[in-house]
């Protein structure tokens, strides 16, 4: 899961396929790299739990913090997933829950639970490239960008990385023109992604700052997004990470929005 979080971190989202990978002969086919990176980043174990602390720094150096717990369950490796995000800080969002049923073949279903009103609100999934809780991470970084939304090209193989360039199939649907992603050749973890805007300027970098082995899964425990244009950054730190917790599918339903499970309340 953490990688789940990696998710958070990465734009993993980043990955998708092209049919004509030029380096297919000497390196793994680009589809294979993309698939493996997607699995490594977002699908560690059958499920996972992590606590995340985000520090958001704006262009004037002011800091804000967000703390939340994420639960993730895979319906199928590389396929549909369920996410449950339970907020702990700051206090005006405490006990709010954000839930996502991620689908590969259609728009995700998203809900927000507001405890003060006991209100289960449905949220439109249209624009996934909006800020997640005011941070520099995007919704799509949290629940993952579909690997089929971009064309991927292997542009370089270095000593430790595969370097891919990914271009959106529908350029009007996103704010970037392309991104370059560095994927660790050993474990297929995305280590860094750099985004170019429509003018070709590098405006956003997502990086894994620290990776640890947890239950045999390489896991991002610290990541950072930098905004080079508006300035500012968000650093996420992941603690109490656990894979294969045995989360029941029923946790990801309205019942547990109204009465959060022990797994998040601790």
């Amino acid at each position: 899961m953490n990688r789940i979080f990696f998710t958070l971190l990465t734009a993993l989202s980043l990955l998708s396929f092209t049919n004509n990978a030029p380096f297919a002969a000497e390196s793994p086919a680009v589809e294979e790299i993309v698939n493996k990176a997607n699995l490594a980043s977002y699908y560690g174990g059958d499920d996972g739990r992590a606590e995340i602390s985000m520090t958001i720094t704006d262009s004037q150096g002011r800091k804000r913090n967000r703390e939340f717990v994420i639960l993730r369950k895979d319906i199928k490796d590389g396929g549909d997933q369920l996410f449950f995000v339970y907020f702990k800080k700051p206090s005006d969002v405490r006990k709010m829950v954000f839930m996502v049923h991620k689908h590969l073949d259609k728009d995700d279903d998203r809900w927000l639970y507001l405890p003060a009103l006991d209100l289960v609100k449905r949220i439109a999934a249209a624009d996934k490239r909006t800020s997640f809780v005011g941070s520099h991470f995007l919704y799509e970084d949290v629940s993952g960008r579909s690997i089929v939304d971009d064309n991927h090209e292997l542009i370089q193989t270095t000593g430790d990385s595969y370097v891919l360039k990914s271009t959106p199939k529908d350029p009007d649907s996103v704010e970037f023109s392309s991104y370059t992603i560095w994927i660790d050749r050993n474990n297929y973890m995305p280590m860094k992604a750099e985004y170019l805007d429509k003018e070709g300027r590098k405006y956003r970098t997502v990086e894994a700052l620290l990776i640890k082995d947890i239950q045999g899964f390489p896991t991002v425990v610290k990541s950072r997004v930098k905004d080079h244009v508006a300035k500012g950054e968000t650093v996420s730190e992941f603690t109490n990470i656990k894979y294969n917790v045995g989360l029941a599918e029923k946790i990801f339903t309205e019942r547990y929005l109204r009465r959060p499970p022990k797994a998040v309340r601790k």
Partner: protein
Amino acid sequence: MTNVTNINLRSRSTPYIISILLAGFFVFPGASQAAPLQDWLYEDLHGFVEIRNGWRLDNDVDEKDVSIAEARLQLDLSKDIFDGSMKFKGDLVGDAVTEELRPELRELNYGFSPTDIMDLKLGRQILTWGTGDLLFINDLFPKDWESFFIGRDDEYLKAPSDAIKGSLFFDMFALDLVYVPVFNNSNFIDGSRISYWNPLLGRTAGRDFILEDHERNQVFRDSEFAGRLSKNIEGVELAFYGYYGFWKTPEGFEPTSGKVIYPRLSVFGASARGAIWNGIGNVEFGYYDSISDKKGTDPFIRNSEIRFLTGYERELAREFTGGLQYYSEYMQDYDAYESNLPPGMKKADKFRHVFTVRLTKLLMNQNLRLSLFGYFSPSDEDVYIRPKVHYKISDNLAAEAGGNIFWGTEDHTFFGQFEDNTNLYAGVRWSF
């Protein structure tokens, strides 16, 4: 009674004191064993301190110029006990408009799961269901319209219920049942803080004519029952609802006492909500069966009606969402209503149509929120607009300002009657 608000609050202050005792009881022993009290309070005690002021823009002869002036402390404590969790949330309000210091108990409940497929929640709680956005058809839990119209935080639109809620979760569907032993009415507009159209006087009235309600306070006889059967099919949320109780606002009048009353009501309805056209769409209807006036011939009891709403919300641009709803009330037995209407009374339409618009724009890393919610009724020819600016100065400190703008071509329509209550407000909140 002189003031409905006060009555509500008074009846709520006794459980408040009990609750504080209870809170102390269950909370402190557990805390002292596991960890020092300070640690526990640091972890689990939350709340806010808020100051809020508002002013009327029109010179309403019937009401004070100050629409809201209050300082509020909210404390929120929760604690896991046995296999469930106990929750307390209460406010202490210094209200310069009513010139009183009053406690308000918002929540004191215990929630647990007696079996794997069952949840129970007992005590004072906030309850919500249904699909409307600031429109309610099958959500017959109490509202506080006064708070809504004078510019308190949206949280206060939902008034608490003293209830038992049981939920059963089967593979096929989920079933929620709510039992309210003693009727919880909505805090309606009685004239004490907001002037209103008084059909008997045939004019707008305020503090000069505060409506008195005939309270329903007998255990068992004045009980309410509400139920919902729901199911999520491939992302489409379907629900069926039933309610047996009373009109939540006093939709009846008792000529002998001169008091307004809460006639019997039963409601059944259904709703659906799901993702559509890159947004969220919903439909909901309810049949309001006014049991005490089945034929619609009693001019002092509101007729039965069919209520319907449909809505659509989507992101219009980055950090900018828009929502649109259509809502209607269709009066049953209109001929009977017409022929029994006392002479001189303003006649309601057979159909009441309302459109609502919601626009929300987030700026500055989502720390600044500009929002607008508007109700527009072509049949009543009236409007109610709620603009709001909310800025998070830091993680703990937030400021907001907004308005409640009423307008109508006539003085007796739903929103038009509140025209003189148009107000602006501003507040600052420190959360911890």
